[in-house]
């Protein structure tokens, strides 16, 4: 019998006597939505919304905003500061949080406001906000924004890996504009674009990356600034639908890894053949 010491460290989980730790899921063909998230409401899961802030008092949030911070440039360096008032400077972050809350009402929401007043620091501020989310107990992070700066490629790549290894699922809106878009184009990230079916539970898996999932993003009634509501269209609003469903999966299967959640999402996605408007349902 091979001694553990003879094995490269990476092989340890795969050897006799250790492989029990690998048993997690039934084969993919047996996965369905009832198994994946039936009965779950997101309880026990923290979802981070990296965006324009989340309006604490908005009815669409249901009082589930547990923590609120903002990232600012202090002497050129991004710093994460408490933002206890829970405000949204645009309405967009509240829209995303509201979508997650509607799907996973038991989940705890955390807002990380990263829209700083300075263009110079927007990439680093965004990265600092994401880093904070990964370090502060979020299981799912909704990113309806991205950076087009080549200088941010490496920092975001590092953060995407950090998130993956810390069991934090990054759900990112795909960017419509051609060109680089970080971190939405990284493979460990769940990249989402909008479909045109008016149903929150309808989502599709696309086997051709980088944008692997399609979710509701056309004419979505969403929460907006100052307690308001609006109808919105964009990949921005598709991402939180997948974030919400992923939250349910994490809630029902604590400890599920990002790639397992991605696999469950792929296995439970709607059959693209014959989906009519409103044909979703959980």
């Amino acid at each position: 019998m091979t001694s553990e010491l003879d094995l490269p460290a990476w092989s340890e989980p795969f050897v006799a006597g250790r492989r029990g730790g690998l048993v997690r899921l039934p084969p993919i063909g047996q996965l369905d939505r009832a198994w994946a998230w039936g009965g779950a409401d997101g309880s026990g899961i923290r979802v981070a919304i990296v965006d324009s802030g989340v309006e604490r008092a908005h009815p669409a949030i249901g009082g589930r905003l547990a923590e609120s911070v903002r990232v600012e440039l202090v002497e050129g360096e991004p710093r994460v500061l408490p933002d206890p008032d829970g405000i949204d400077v645009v309405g967009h972050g509240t829209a995303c949080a509201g979508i997650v809350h509607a799907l996973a009402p038991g989940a705890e929401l955390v807002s990380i406001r990263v829209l700083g007043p300075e263009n110079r620091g927007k990439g680093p501020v965004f990265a600092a906000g994401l880093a904070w989310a990964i370090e502060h107990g979020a299981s799912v992070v909704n990113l309806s924004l991205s950076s087009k700066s080549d200088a941010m490629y490496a920092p975001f790549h590092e953060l995407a890996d950090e998130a993956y290894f810390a069991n934090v699922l990054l759900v990112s809106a795909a960017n419509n504009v051609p060109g680089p878009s970080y971190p939405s184009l990284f493979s460990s990230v769940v990249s989402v674009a909008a479909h045109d079916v008016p149903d929150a539970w309808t989502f599709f898996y696309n086997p051709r990356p980088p944008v692997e999932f399609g979710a509701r993003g056309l004419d979505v009634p969403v929460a907006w600034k100052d307690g308001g509501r609006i109808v919105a269209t964009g990949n921005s609003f598709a991402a939180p639908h997948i974030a919400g469903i992923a939250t349910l999966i994490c809630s029902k299967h604590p400890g599920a890894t990002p790639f397992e959640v991605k696999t469950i999402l792929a296995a439970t996605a709607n059959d693209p053949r014959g989906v009519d408007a409103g044909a979703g349902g959980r």
Partner: protein
Amino acid sequence: MSGDEAPPSAGDAPLTTGDDDRPPRDAGPAHDLGTVLLRAAAVRAEAARRILGEPLEALLRSIVDATAALFEAEAASIALFDPETNRLVFRIAAGDQGQGVVGQAIPIDQGVAGYVFSSGQAIALSDVAHDPRFAGQVAARTGYVPRSLLAVPLVDGDHTIGVLEVLDKRDAATFSLRDIELAGVFAGQAAVAINATRIERDTRSLLAAVLVELAGEALDRQSAEAAAEAVAAAATEDLDRGDDTRLWALAERVARLRRADPEQLELLAELLDVLVRRTEAGDWPRSGRRGLGRRAAASPVIDA
């Protein structure tokens, strides 16, 4: 790095003779080819800038007109990022109803345009008027509440330079996913054109780029921007005062920042030669504002 190494492309730049045995750091600024070219380019560019018209406005006009026509929309507008104030300034609008927005400046962390600019995400909103608070904010700003609104970032490469907005599609209550995609592609083309116009117009961009190129890692972009700005601002003042003293003092500092080897010097000469020829040919677009120095931050090289 002496005057007699000047490539033929130096043209009629006012080269002066000097003591070639002195090390470059101690040499007077007038002895340095790069400095001479920088000065000549800055002065001529500013002179041309003041004489010629403003093609950027014409380009923006054609973009918003085409956008409104393409989407069959009531109005369209363009906001460009102004690095001096760190705001998005609505520069132009098509359609009678859109005119109220022109000249408005909004912080980049607020509003739909601010979000689209900062996040890089295209979004469309409808039922705007249904939400009295949101509609009120929009109306207070523009005097016009659209039923529907589509906003896409103007992205050239990895730089976002502004936001293109389309308001009130005539034949539909909302914008479709296809509209968003189309607008994204269209905005990409527009951004390339806008940036090209700005780069040609903006001597400081070129000066800063040259300085970074020359100094390599020894000079960060911010310092290069500052140096280029100083040279350009001085050129502007000197045109008014007919006095070269300040320009030379600043140009000397620029020269000191250099770590030029012959290859880099060649690049500098070539770039500046293009600049000089362009201004001499008389096709140098003019800035909307006086003073080269004030446009420094518009340089695409600093967008992070």
